[in-house]
Protein backbone atom coordinates (compact mmCIF):
# COMPACT_ATOMS: atom_id res chain seq x y z
CA UNK A 1 0.00 0.00 0.00
CA UNK A 2 1.27 3.48 -0.86
CA UNK A 3 1.91 5.65 2.21
CA UNK A 4 -0.60 8.44 2.54
CA UNK A 5 0.79 11.92 3.00
CA UNK A 6 -1.02 13.15 6.08
CA UNK A 7 -0.59 16.85 6.77
CA UNK A 8 1.08 17.51 10.09
CA UNK A 9 0.18 20.73 11.81
CA UNK A 10 3.61 21.17 13.41
CA UNK A 11 4.10 22.92 16.69
CA UNK A 12 2.93 26.45 15.90
CA UNK A 13 -0.11 27.25 17.97
CA UNK A 14 -2.82 28.67 15.71
CA UNK A 15 -3.26 32.05 17.37
CA UNK A 16 -2.30 35.61 16.66
CA UNK A 17 -2.34 36.49 20.35
CA UNK A 18 1.05 37.33 21.83
CA UNK A 19 1.52 36.10 25.36
CA UNK A 20 3.65 38.59 27.27
CA UNK A 21 5.06 37.12 30.43
CA UNK A 22 5.29 39.29 33.46
CA UNK A 23 6.51 37.67 36.66
CA UNK A 24 4.99 40.52 38.67
CA UNK A 25 1.42 39.74 37.66
CA UNK A 26 1.24 35.97 37.96
CA UNK A 27 -1.00 34.15 40.36
CA UNK A 28 1.45 31.37 41.18
CA UNK A 29 3.83 32.80 43.70
CA UNK A 30 7.55 32.16 43.51
CA UNK A 31 8.36 30.26 46.69
CA UNK A 32 12.10 30.35 46.40
CA UNK A 33 12.72 33.51 48.39
CA UNK A 34 10.43 32.20 51.14
CA UNK A 35 12.44 28.97 51.16
CA UNK A 36 15.71 30.85 51.66
CA UNK A 37 14.07 33.07 54.27
CA UNK A 38 12.92 30.03 56.24
CA UNK A 39 16.45 28.72 55.89
CA UNK A 40 17.88 31.94 57.36
CA UNK A 41 15.41 31.69 60.24
CA UNK A 42 16.67 28.19 61.01
CA UNK A 43 13.42 26.46 60.09
CA UNK A 44 15.22 24.17 57.69
CA UNK A 45 18.46 23.70 55.78
CA UNK A 46 18.25 24.80 52.17
CA UNK A 47 20.19 22.60 49.76
CA UNK A 48 21.49 24.82 46.95
CA UNK A 49 21.48 23.67 43.34
CA UNK A 50 25.07 22.60 42.66
CA UNK A 51 27.10 24.28 39.98
CA UNK A 52 27.23 24.07 37.05
CA UNK A 53 23.54 24.65 36.47
CA UNK A 54 21.43 25.64 33.49
CA UNK A 55 18.91 28.49 33.70
CA UNK A 56 15.61 27.46 32.16
CA UNK A 57 12.61 29.77 31.61
CA UNK A 58 9.38 28.87 33.41
CA UNK A 59 5.75 29.66 32.64
CA UNK A 60 5.82 33.27 33.75
CA UNK A 61 9.41 34.00 32.88
CA UNK A 62 11.27 33.17 36.08
CA UNK A 63 14.56 31.39 35.55
CA UNK A 64 14.81 27.97 37.14
CA UNK A 65 18.16 26.44 38.05
CA UNK A 66 18.61 22.96 36.59
CA UNK A 67 21.64 21.06 37.93
CA UNK A 68 23.69 19.30 35.28
CA UNK A 69 25.52 16.86 37.50
CA UNK A 70 25.93 15.68 41.10
CA UNK A 71 22.30 14.59 40.86
CA UNK A 72 20.60 12.14 43.27
CA UNK A 73 18.16 10.11 41.23
CA UNK A 74 14.78 9.93 42.92
CA UNK A 75 13.45 6.90 41.11
CA UNK A 76 9.85 6.13 40.38
CA UNK A 77 8.00 3.00 41.38
CA UNK A 78 6.32 2.47 38.04
CA UNK A 79 9.26 3.20 35.81
CA UNK A 80 11.58 1.04 37.79
CA UNK A 81 8.99 -1.71 38.24
CA UNK A 82 7.86 -2.23 34.69
CA UNK A 83 9.46 0.38 32.38
CA UNK A 84 13.05 -0.03 33.56
CA UNK A 85 14.47 1.36 30.32
CA UNK A 86 13.12 4.77 31.26
CA UNK A 87 15.43 5.21 34.25
CA UNK A 88 18.24 3.16 32.72
CA UNK A 89 18.27 5.59 29.79
CA UNK A 90 18.54 8.58 32.13
CA UNK A 91 21.50 7.01 33.92
CA UNK A 92 23.11 6.00 30.63
CA UNK A 93 22.81 9.56 29.25
CA UNK A 94 24.51 10.85 32.41
CA UNK A 95 27.34 8.42 31.84
CA UNK A 96 27.59 9.30 28.17
CA UNK A 97 27.98 12.97 29.08
CA UNK A 98 30.51 12.11 31.75
CA UNK A 99 28.35 13.42 34.58
CA UNK A 100 28.70 12.30 38.17
CA UNK A 101 25.37 11.05 39.55
CA UNK A 102 24.07 8.93 42.43
CA UNK A 103 21.52 6.10 42.24
CA UNK A 104 20.42 5.67 45.87
CA UNK A 105 19.02 2.75 47.82
CA UNK A 106 18.14 5.06 50.71
CA UNK A 107 14.99 6.21 48.91
CA UNK A 108 11.36 5.23 49.15
CA UNK A 109 8.67 5.94 46.60
CA UNK A 110 7.06 9.35 47.03
CA UNK A 111 3.95 7.28 47.95
CA UNK A 112 1.75 9.70 46.00
CA UNK A 113 0.44 7.01 43.66
CA UNK A 114 -1.02 5.22 46.65
CA UNK A 115 -2.27 8.45 48.18
CA UNK A 116 -4.04 9.62 45.01
CA UNK A 117 -5.45 6.13 44.47
CA UNK A 118 -6.57 5.12 47.91
CA UNK A 119 -6.26 8.18 50.21
CA UNK A 120 -4.74 5.91 52.87
CA UNK A 121 -2.28 8.55 53.96
CA UNK A 122 -2.47 12.14 55.05
CA UNK A 123 -0.82 15.51 54.61
CA UNK A 124 1.77 15.07 57.36
CA UNK A 125 2.72 11.56 56.27
CA UNK A 126 3.11 12.59 52.65
CA UNK A 127 5.22 15.58 53.62
CA UNK A 128 7.36 13.47 55.94
CA UNK A 129 8.06 10.95 53.18
CA UNK A 130 9.15 13.76 50.86
CA UNK A 131 11.36 15.38 53.48
CA UNK A 132 12.91 12.06 54.49
CA UNK A 133 13.93 11.51 50.90
CA UNK A 134 15.27 15.05 50.61
CA UNK A 135 17.33 14.64 53.76
CA UNK A 136 18.70 11.35 52.44
CA UNK A 137 19.81 13.14 49.28
CA UNK A 138 21.37 15.98 51.24
CA UNK A 139 23.37 13.54 53.35
CA UNK A 140 25.01 12.13 50.22
CA UNK A 141 25.90 15.61 48.94
CA UNK A 142 24.01 15.01 45.69
CA UNK A 143 21.01 17.02 44.51
CA UNK A 144 17.57 15.43 44.03
CA UNK A 145 16.45 14.93 40.43
CA UNK A 146 12.93 13.59 40.33
CA UNK A 147 12.20 10.93 37.69
CA UNK A 148 8.42 10.81 37.98
CA UNK A 149 5.90 13.50 36.97
CA UNK A 150 3.67 12.66 39.90
CA UNK A 151 6.49 12.73 42.44
CA UNK A 152 7.56 16.08 41.02
CA UNK A 153 4.07 17.64 41.18
CA UNK A 154 3.35 16.13 44.57
CA UNK A 155 6.62 17.31 46.08
CA UNK A 156 5.92 20.83 44.83
CA UNK A 157 2.51 20.69 46.53
CA UNK A 158 4.20 19.47 49.70
CA UNK A 159 6.73 22.32 49.48
CA UNK A 160 3.91 24.82 49.05
CA UNK A 161 2.10 23.43 52.11
CA UNK A 162 5.26 23.40 54.23
CA UNK A 163 6.11 26.99 53.35
CA UNK A 164 2.63 28.24 54.20
CA UNK A 165 1.68 26.10 57.16
CA UNK A 166 3.99 26.56 60.15
CA UNK A 167 2.10 23.96 62.17
CA UNK A 168 2.58 21.31 59.52
CA UNK A 169 6.22 22.33 59.11
CA UNK A 170 6.91 21.91 62.83
CA UNK A 171 5.07 18.59 62.92
CA UNK A 172 7.03 17.19 59.98
CA UNK A 173 10.30 18.60 61.25
CA UNK A 174 9.78 16.85 64.59
CA UNK A 175 9.22 13.56 62.77
CA UNK A 176 12.34 13.93 60.62
CA UNK A 177 14.44 14.87 63.64
CA UNK A 178 13.17 11.81 65.51
CA UNK A 179 14.48 9.75 62.63
CA UNK A 180 17.85 11.37 63.28
CA UNK A 181 17.84 13.23 59.98
CA UNK A 182 18.44 16.87 59.05
CA UNK A 183 15.37 18.81 57.89
CA UNK A 184 16.24 19.89 54.35
CA UNK A 185 14.41 21.65 51.54
CA UNK A 186 16.08 21.73 48.12
CA UNK A 187 16.38 25.16 46.55
CA UNK A 188 14.51 23.96 43.45
CA UNK A 189 12.45 20.87 42.78
CA UNK A 190 13.66 19.56 39.45
CA UNK A 191 12.18 16.97 37.11
CA UNK A 192 14.44 14.81 34.95
CA UNK A 193 12.78 16.12 31.78
CA UNK A 194 13.99 19.58 32.75
CA UNK A 195 17.47 18.11 32.94
CA UNK A 196 16.89 16.61 29.47
CA UNK A 197 15.89 20.10 28.33
CA UNK A 198 19.06 21.52 29.85
CA UNK A 199 21.35 19.03 28.08
CA UNK A 200 19.49 18.92 24.76
CA UNK A 201 22.25 20.70 22.83
CA UNK A 202 24.93 18.36 24.13
CA UNK A 203 22.77 15.43 23.06
CA UNK A 204 21.99 16.82 19.63
CA UNK A 205 25.72 17.01 18.91
CA UNK A 206 25.90 13.24 19.34
CA UNK A 207 22.90 12.16 17.26
CA UNK A 208 23.72 9.05 15.21
CA UNK A 209 20.70 8.84 12.90
CA UNK A 210 18.73 11.11 10.58
CA UNK A 211 15.51 11.66 12.50
CA UNK A 212 13.97 14.16 10.12
CA UNK A 213 11.45 11.59 8.85
CA UNK A 214 10.37 10.65 12.36
CA UNK A 215 7.18 12.25 13.65
CA UNK A 216 6.48 12.21 17.36
CA UNK A 217 3.47 13.32 19.33
CA UNK A 218 4.12 14.52 22.85
CA UNK A 219 1.89 13.85 25.82
CA UNK A 220 2.88 16.18 28.65
CA UNK A 221 2.18 14.64 32.05
CA UNK A 222 -0.65 16.30 34.00
CA UNK A 223 1.23 16.33 37.28
CA UNK A 224 4.25 17.89 35.63
CA UNK A 225 2.55 21.14 34.61
CA UNK A 226 -0.95 21.26 36.14
CA UNK A 227 0.16 21.16 39.79
CA UNK A 228 2.03 24.29 40.95
CA UNK A 229 2.11 25.24 37.28
CA UNK A 230 4.32 28.33 37.47
CA UNK A 231 7.33 26.14 38.09
CA UNK A 232 7.26 24.15 34.82
CA UNK A 233 9.52 24.89 31.84
CA UNK A 234 7.99 27.09 29.12
CA UNK A 235 10.22 28.27 26.29
CA UNK A 236 9.19 31.10 23.95
CA UNK A 237 10.77 29.09 21.11
CA UNK A 238 8.47 26.12 21.71
CA UNK A 239 4.75 26.55 20.99
CA UNK A 240 5.32 30.27 21.40
CA UNK A 241 5.57 29.64 25.14
CA UNK A 242 1.90 28.62 25.24
CA UNK A 243 2.58 25.06 26.35
CA UNK A 244 5.27 23.45 28.39
CA UNK A 245 8.48 22.91 26.43
CA UNK A 246 9.47 19.77 28.35
CA UNK A 247 9.92 16.78 26.01
CA UNK A 248 9.08 18.76 22.83
CA UNK A 249 12.20 20.94 22.91
CA UNK A 250 14.46 17.91 23.30
CA UNK A 251 12.82 15.96 20.49
CA UNK A 252 13.02 18.90 18.11
CA UNK A 253 16.63 19.55 19.03
CA UNK A 254 17.42 15.95 18.16
CA UNK A 255 16.05 16.60 14.68
CA UNK A 256 12.68 14.82 14.79
CA UNK A 257 9.30 16.40 13.98
CA UNK A 258 6.76 17.05 16.71
CA UNK A 259 3.16 17.05 15.52
CA UNK A 260 0.31 18.79 17.25
CA UNK A 261 -3.05 17.16 18.00
CA UNK A 262 -6.26 18.48 19.47
CA UNK A 263 -6.41 16.55 22.76
CA UNK A 264 -2.99 17.70 23.84
CA UNK A 265 -4.19 18.94 27.25
CA UNK A 266 -6.07 15.74 28.09
CA UNK A 267 -4.88 13.37 30.77
CA UNK A 268 -3.71 9.88 29.69
CA UNK A 269 -6.43 8.17 31.75
CA UNK A 270 -4.08 6.65 34.31
CA UNK A 271 -6.33 7.48 37.24
CA UNK A 272 -4.01 5.91 39.88
CA UNK A 273 -6.58 3.42 41.16
CA UNK A 274 -8.11 2.93 37.73
CA UNK A 275 -4.98 1.65 36.00
CA UNK A 276 -4.82 -1.22 38.47
CA UNK A 277 -8.41 -2.10 39.28
CA UNK A 278 -10.66 -0.25 36.79
CA UNK A 279 -8.74 -0.47 33.57
CA UNK A 280 -11.76 -0.24 31.29
CA UNK A 281 -11.79 3.47 32.12
CA UNK A 282 -8.06 3.94 31.55
CA UNK A 283 -8.15 1.97 28.33
CA UNK A 284 -11.12 3.88 26.93
CA UNK A 285 -9.63 7.25 27.73
CA UNK A 286 -6.08 6.43 26.62
CA UNK A 287 -7.16 5.04 23.27
CA UNK A 288 -10.26 7.07 22.36
CA UNK A 289 -9.08 10.46 23.58
CA UNK A 290 -5.35 10.22 23.02
CA UNK A 291 -3.95 7.51 20.71
CA UNK A 292 -6.79 7.49 18.16
CA UNK A 293 -6.83 11.27 17.97
CA UNK A 294 -3.06 11.34 17.49
CA UNK A 295 -3.32 8.68 14.78
CA UNK A 296 -6.05 10.50 12.96
CA UNK A 297 -4.57 13.98 13.17
CA UNK A 298 -0.82 13.38 13.08
CA UNK A 299 -0.12 9.69 12.35
CA UNK A 300 3.01 9.69 14.59
CA UNK A 301 5.78 7.09 14.57
CA UNK A 302 6.07 7.34 18.34
CA UNK A 303 4.36 8.89 21.37
CA UNK A 304 6.76 10.50 23.84
CA UNK A 305 6.06 11.44 27.41
CA UNK A 306 7.88 12.03 30.69
CA UNK A 307 6.03 10.16 33.36
CA UNK A 308 5.63 6.56 34.46
CA UNK A 309 1.87 6.54 34.52
CA UNK A 310 1.51 8.07 31.10
CA UNK A 311 3.85 5.57 29.43
CA UNK A 312 1.95 2.74 31.11
CA UNK A 313 -1.57 3.92 30.22
CA UNK A 314 -0.76 4.87 26.66
CA UNK A 315 1.34 1.79 25.89
CA UNK A 316 -0.55 -0.99 27.66
CA UNK A 317 -4.03 0.18 26.72
CA UNK A 318 -3.51 -0.33 23.02
CA UNK A 319 -3.55 -4.13 22.88
CA UNK A 320 -7.21 -4.61 23.76
CA UNK A 321 -8.28 -1.66 21.60
CA UNK A 322 -6.39 -3.18 18.67
CA UNK A 323 -8.26 -6.42 19.20
CA UNK A 324 -11.44 -4.43 18.66
CA UNK A 325 -10.14 -3.08 15.38
CA UNK A 326 -9.56 0.45 16.68
CA UNK A 327 -7.15 2.78 14.91
CA UNK A 328 -4.25 2.42 17.37
CA UNK A 329 -0.75 0.90 17.36
CA UNK A 330 1.85 3.58 18.11
CA UNK A 331 4.88 2.79 20.30
CA UNK A 332 5.12 4.79 23.52
CA UNK A 333 8.24 5.66 25.48
CA UNK A 334 9.88 8.40 27.48
CA UNK A 335 11.91 11.06 25.71
CA UNK A 336 14.90 9.75 27.70
CA UNK A 337 14.57 6.42 25.88
CA UNK A 338 14.05 8.13 22.53
CA UNK A 339 17.03 10.44 23.05
CA UNK A 340 19.21 7.54 24.17
CA UNK A 341 18.29 5.63 20.97
CA UNK A 342 19.08 8.71 18.91
CA UNK A 343 22.57 9.04 20.37
CA UNK A 344 23.37 5.36 19.93
CA UNK A 345 22.11 3.50 23.00
CA UNK A 346 21.33 -0.17 22.61
CA UNK A 347 17.55 -0.59 22.21
CA UNK A 348 17.43 -3.57 24.58
CA UNK A 349 20.50 -3.41 26.83
CA UNK A 350 19.85 0.26 27.61
CA UNK A 351 16.38 1.28 26.44
CA UNK A 352 14.88 -2.07 27.45
CA UNK A 353 12.14 -1.83 24.85
CA UNK A 354 11.17 -5.49 25.28
CA UNK A 355 9.20 -4.40 28.36
CA UNK A 356 6.87 -2.32 26.14
CA UNK A 357 3.63 -3.68 24.70
CA UNK A 358 3.18 -1.93 21.33
CA UNK A 359 5.47 -3.02 18.47
CA UNK A 360 8.39 -0.59 18.44
CA UNK A 361 10.26 -2.29 15.60
CA UNK A 362 8.82 -0.20 12.72
CA UNK A 363 10.03 2.93 14.55
CA UNK A 364 13.52 1.53 15.04
CA UNK A 365 13.74 0.46 11.40
CA UNK A 366 12.69 3.91 10.32
CA UNK A 367 15.35 5.45 12.56
CA UNK A 368 17.93 3.20 10.88
CA UNK A 369 18.54 0.87 13.83
CA UNK A 370 19.17 -2.81 13.16
CA UNK A 371 16.61 -4.27 15.55
CA UNK A 372 17.16 -7.91 14.67
CA UNK A 373 20.87 -7.70 15.35
CA UNK A 374 20.30 -5.81 18.59
CA UNK A 375 17.78 -8.40 19.78
CA UNK A 376 20.17 -11.24 18.95
CA UNK A 377 22.86 -9.49 21.01
CA UNK A 378 20.50 -9.08 23.93
CA UNK A 379 19.36 -12.70 23.69
CA UNK A 380 23.01 -13.75 23.81
CA UNK A 381 23.43 -11.74 27.03
CA UNK A 382 20.36 -13.40 28.47
CA UNK A 383 21.72 -16.84 27.62
CA UNK A 384 24.98 -16.01 29.38
CA UNK A 385 23.07 -14.92 32.48
CA UNK A 386 20.94 -18.07 32.36
CA UNK A 387 24.00 -20.30 32.15
CA UNK A 388 25.90 -18.50 34.86
CA UNK A 389 28.59 -17.11 32.54
CA UNK A 390 27.56 -13.61 33.52
CA UNK A 391 25.76 -12.64 36.71
CA UNK A 392 24.37 -9.30 35.58
CA UNK A 393 24.50 -6.97 32.64
CA UNK A 394 26.75 -4.14 33.80
CA UNK A 395 27.48 -0.60 32.67
CA UNK A 396 30.72 -1.84 31.13
CA UNK A 397 28.64 -3.86 28.64
CA UNK A 398 26.64 -0.91 27.40
CA UNK A 399 28.91 2.09 27.06
Amino acid at each position, binding site marked *: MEPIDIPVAGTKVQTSRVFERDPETVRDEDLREAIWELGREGEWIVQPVPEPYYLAPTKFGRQKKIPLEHTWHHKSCGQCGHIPGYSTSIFWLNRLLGFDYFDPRDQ*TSCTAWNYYASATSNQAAQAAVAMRNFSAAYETGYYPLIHCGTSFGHYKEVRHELVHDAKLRRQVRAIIEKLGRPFVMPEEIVHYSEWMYAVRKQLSERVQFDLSKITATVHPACHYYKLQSGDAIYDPEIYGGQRTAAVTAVVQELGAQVADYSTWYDCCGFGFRHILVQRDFTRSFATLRKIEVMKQEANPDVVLTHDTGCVTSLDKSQFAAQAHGRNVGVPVMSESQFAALAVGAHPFRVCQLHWHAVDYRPLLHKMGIDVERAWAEFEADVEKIKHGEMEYLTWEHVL
Partner: protein
Amino acid sequence: MPSDRYAEVALEEKQRLFDEVKADPRYKTYLYGCYECGICVAACPSARFYDFSPRKIAQTLAREDVELFYEQLNDDVWNCSQCFSCNRCPRQNSPGGLITIMREVAVKNGLRTTKEALAGYTRIIYKIMTTGTQVSPDMLQEDAFPDWGPQVKAVSQNLDVWRRALPPETLHTTGLSWQVEERTMHELYAIWKMTGTLDMIGELDEGLHDIMEEIMDDALEESGLPTE
Protein backbone atom coordinates in the same frame (compact mmCIF):
# COMPACT_ATOMS: atom_id res chain seq x y z
CA MET B 1 -33.63 19.34 44.94
CA PRO B 2 -32.05 17.94 48.10
CA SER B 3 -30.49 14.50 47.84
CA ASP B 4 -32.46 11.70 49.49
CA ARG B 5 -30.14 8.85 48.60
CA TYR B 6 -28.82 8.50 52.11
CA ALA B 7 -31.95 9.47 54.04
CA GLU B 8 -31.17 6.85 56.70
CA VAL B 9 -27.98 8.71 57.71
CA ALA B 10 -28.59 11.48 60.24
CA LEU B 11 -27.99 15.04 59.10
CA GLU B 12 -25.63 15.55 62.06
CA GLU B 13 -23.40 12.79 60.78
CA LYS B 14 -23.30 14.35 57.31
CA GLN B 15 -22.55 17.72 58.86
CA ARG B 16 -19.77 16.22 61.00
CA LEU B 17 -18.06 14.78 57.93
CA PHE B 18 -18.51 18.02 56.02
CA ASP B 19 -16.93 19.94 58.89
CA GLU B 20 -14.01 17.51 58.89
CA VAL B 21 -13.39 18.21 55.20
CA LYS B 22 -13.72 21.95 55.73
CA ALA B 23 -11.29 21.90 58.63
CA ASP B 24 -8.47 20.53 56.47
CA PRO B 25 -5.81 23.25 56.14
CA ARG B 26 -5.76 22.83 52.36
CA TYR B 27 -9.49 23.45 51.96
CA LYS B 28 -9.29 27.21 51.92
CA THR B 29 -6.78 27.19 49.08
CA TYR B 30 -8.77 24.68 47.05
CA LEU B 31 -12.14 26.45 47.02
CA TYR B 32 -12.84 30.10 46.29
CA GLY B 33 -16.36 29.84 44.86
CA CYS B 34 -17.64 28.75 41.49
CA TYR B 35 -18.60 30.53 38.29
CA GLU B 36 -20.43 27.42 37.09
CA CYS B 37 -18.55 27.85 33.82
CA GLY B 38 -17.89 24.14 33.31
CA ILE B 39 -14.27 24.53 32.27
CA CYS B 40 -13.28 21.90 34.81
CA VAL B 41 -15.84 19.50 33.34
CA ALA B 42 -14.52 20.01 29.84
CA ALA B 43 -11.01 19.16 31.06
CA CYS B 44 -12.00 16.23 33.27
CA PRO B 45 -11.35 12.68 32.01
CA SER B 46 -13.70 11.13 34.55
CA ALA B 47 -16.57 13.39 33.48
CA ARG B 48 -16.30 11.84 30.03
CA PHE B 49 -16.81 8.25 31.09
CA TYR B 50 -18.71 8.41 34.37
CA ASP B 51 -21.74 10.24 35.67
CA PHE B 52 -19.38 12.60 37.44
CA SER B 53 -18.71 16.33 37.51
CA PRO B 54 -15.98 18.36 39.22
CA ARG B 55 -18.23 21.41 38.84
CA LYS B 56 -20.88 19.77 40.99
CA ILE B 57 -18.31 18.98 43.67
CA ALA B 58 -17.12 22.59 43.78
CA GLN B 59 -20.67 23.95 43.79
CA THR B 60 -21.90 21.58 46.47
CA LEU B 61 -19.05 22.55 48.77
CA ALA B 62 -19.38 26.26 47.99
CA ARG B 63 -23.10 26.11 48.82
CA GLU B 64 -22.44 23.91 51.83
CA ASP B 65 -25.14 21.49 50.77
CA VAL B 66 -24.32 18.75 53.26
CA GLU B 67 -26.90 16.29 51.90
CA LEU B 68 -25.45 16.40 48.41
CA PHE B 69 -21.94 16.46 49.88
CA TYR B 70 -22.62 13.18 51.64
CA GLU B 71 -23.94 11.63 48.45
CA GLN B 72 -20.82 12.74 46.55
CA LEU B 73 -18.57 11.50 49.36
CA ASN B 74 -20.08 8.06 48.85
CA ASP B 75 -20.87 7.86 45.17
CA ASP B 76 -18.57 10.21 43.29
CA VAL B 77 -15.16 10.77 44.75
CA TRP B 78 -13.65 7.43 43.75
CA ASN B 79 -14.36 8.14 40.09
CA CYS B 80 -11.91 11.05 40.04
CA SER B 81 -8.59 10.37 38.28
CA GLN B 82 -6.66 12.84 40.44
CA CYS B 83 -5.10 14.30 37.31
CA PHE B 84 -5.75 17.92 38.34
CA SER B 85 -6.76 18.93 34.84
CA CYS B 86 -9.53 20.81 36.64
CA ASN B 87 -6.87 23.12 38.12
CA ARG B 88 -7.35 25.31 35.04
CA CYS B 89 -10.46 26.65 36.81
CA PRO B 90 -10.64 30.42 36.28
CA ARG B 91 -11.87 30.84 39.86
CA GLN B 92 -8.66 29.09 41.01
CA ASN B 93 -10.48 26.18 42.57
CA SER B 94 -8.99 22.72 42.63
CA PRO B 95 -11.94 20.32 42.50
CA GLY B 96 -9.43 17.45 42.35
CA GLY B 97 -7.78 18.78 45.52
CA LEU B 98 -11.15 18.98 47.26
CA ILE B 99 -11.71 15.36 46.28
CA THR B 100 -8.32 14.40 47.75
CA ILE B 101 -9.50 15.77 51.09
CA MET B 102 -12.93 14.16 50.79
CA ARG B 103 -11.37 10.77 50.08
CA GLU B 104 -9.10 11.06 53.08
CA VAL B 105 -12.07 11.83 55.31
CA ALA B 106 -14.00 8.91 53.77
CA VAL B 107 -11.14 6.55 54.59
CA LYS B 108 -10.63 7.91 58.10
CA ASN B 109 -14.29 7.35 58.83
CA GLY B 110 -14.41 3.88 57.30
CA LEU B 111 -17.42 4.52 55.05
CA ARG B 112 -18.92 1.34 53.65
CA THR B 113 -18.79 2.69 50.10
CA THR B 114 -15.08 3.47 50.55
CA LYS B 115 -14.35 -0.08 51.66
CA GLU B 116 -16.16 -1.33 48.57
CA ALA B 117 -14.34 1.06 46.25
CA LEU B 118 -10.94 0.06 47.62
CA ALA B 119 -11.58 -3.66 48.05
CA GLY B 120 -9.50 -4.56 45.00
CA TYR B 121 -6.73 -2.18 45.95
CA THR B 122 -5.60 -3.43 49.35
CA ARG B 123 -2.79 -5.60 47.96
CA ILE B 124 -1.21 -2.47 46.56
CA ILE B 125 -1.60 -0.60 49.83
CA TYR B 126 0.18 -3.44 51.55
CA LYS B 127 2.97 -3.34 49.00
CA ILE B 128 3.72 0.36 49.19
CA MET B 129 3.40 0.66 52.93
CA THR B 130 5.57 -2.30 53.78
CA THR B 131 8.23 -2.07 51.08
CA GLY B 132 8.53 1.59 50.17
CA THR B 133 7.92 0.94 46.48
CA GLN B 134 4.51 0.84 44.90
CA VAL B 135 4.88 -1.53 41.99
CA SER B 136 7.05 -4.57 41.71
CA PRO B 137 7.97 -6.37 38.52
CA ASP B 138 6.56 -9.65 39.87
CA MET B 139 3.09 -8.09 39.86
CA LEU B 140 3.22 -8.31 36.07
CA GLN B 141 1.31 -11.57 35.74
CA GLU B 142 -0.92 -12.63 32.89
CA ASP B 143 -3.93 -13.29 35.09
CA ALA B 144 -3.73 -9.80 36.63
CA PHE B 145 -3.32 -7.99 33.31
CA PRO B 146 -5.07 -10.11 30.66
CA ASP B 147 -5.86 -7.03 28.59
CA TRP B 148 -2.23 -5.90 28.29
CA GLY B 149 -1.42 -8.54 25.71
CA PRO B 150 1.24 -11.23 25.31
CA GLN B 151 4.12 -9.00 26.41
CA VAL B 152 3.04 -9.36 30.07
CA LYS B 153 3.47 -13.11 29.75
CA ALA B 154 6.89 -12.63 28.18
CA VAL B 155 7.93 -10.41 31.10
CA SER B 156 6.68 -12.81 33.76
CA GLN B 157 8.33 -15.81 32.09
CA ASN B 158 11.69 -14.04 31.81
CA LEU B 159 11.40 -11.90 34.90
CA ASP B 160 14.43 -12.93 36.88
CA VAL B 161 16.82 -13.02 33.95
CA TRP B 162 15.50 -9.80 32.38
CA ARG B 163 15.91 -7.98 35.68
CA ARG B 164 19.49 -9.19 35.85
CA ALA B 165 19.95 -7.91 32.30
CA LEU B 166 19.55 -4.33 33.58
CA PRO B 167 22.75 -2.30 33.99
CA PRO B 168 21.73 -0.29 37.13
CA GLU B 169 22.53 -2.39 40.17
CA THR B 170 19.60 -1.00 42.13
CA LEU B 171 17.18 -2.54 39.63
CA HIS B 172 18.23 -6.16 40.12
CA THR B 173 14.98 -6.78 41.93
CA THR B 174 11.76 -8.67 41.28
CA GLY B 175 9.81 -8.04 44.49
CA LEU B 176 10.55 -4.28 44.62
CA SER B 177 10.82 -1.55 41.99
CA TRP B 178 14.39 -0.98 43.17
CA GLN B 179 16.47 -2.10 46.12
CA VAL B 180 15.40 -0.16 49.18
CA GLU B 181 17.60 -0.34 52.26
CA GLU B 182 16.10 -1.98 55.31
CA ARG B 183 16.67 1.11 57.42
CA THR B 184 14.88 3.22 54.81
CA MET B 185 11.80 0.99 54.98
CA HIS B 186 11.86 1.12 58.75
CA GLU B 187 11.90 4.90 58.67
CA LEU B 188 8.84 4.73 56.44
CA TYR B 189 7.11 2.50 59.02
CA ALA B 190 7.94 5.05 61.70
CA ILE B 191 6.38 7.79 59.56
CA TRP B 192 3.19 5.76 59.00
CA LYS B 193 2.96 5.16 62.75
CA MET B 194 3.77 8.70 63.88
CA THR B 195 1.30 10.32 61.47
CA GLY B 196 -1.63 8.02 62.23
CA THR B 197 -1.61 6.54 58.75
CA LEU B 198 -1.58 3.00 60.04
CA ASP B 199 -4.70 3.79 62.09
CA MET B 200 -6.42 4.91 58.87
CA ILE B 201 -5.83 1.43 57.43
CA GLY B 202 -7.61 0.01 60.47
CA GLU B 203 -10.77 1.83 59.40
CA LEU B 204 -10.48 0.42 55.91
CA ASP B 205 -9.49 -3.18 56.49
CA GLU B 206 -8.90 -4.58 59.96
CA GLY B 207 -7.15 -7.73 58.74
CA LEU B 208 -4.73 -5.76 56.60
CA HIS B 209 -4.11 -3.38 59.48
CA ASP B 210 -3.23 -6.19 61.86
CA ILE B 211 -0.80 -7.81 59.45
CA MET B 212 0.90 -4.50 58.74
CA GLU B 213 1.05 -3.53 62.40
CA GLU B 214 2.76 -6.76 63.31
CA ILE B 215 5.36 -6.38 60.57
CA MET B 216 5.99 -2.74 61.44
CA ASP B 217 6.08 -3.17 65.21
CA ASP B 218 8.58 -6.02 65.02
CA ALA B 219 10.81 -4.08 62.63
CA LEU B 220 10.59 -0.86 64.62
CA GLU B 221 11.42 -2.59 67.86
CA GLU B 222 14.51 -4.08 66.27
CA SER B 223 15.56 -0.80 64.66
CA GLY B 224 15.05 1.33 67.74
CA LEU B 225 13.18 3.97 65.72
CA PRO B 226 10.43 6.00 67.40
CA THR B 227 6.76 5.20 66.87
CA GLU B 228 5.17 8.30 68.33
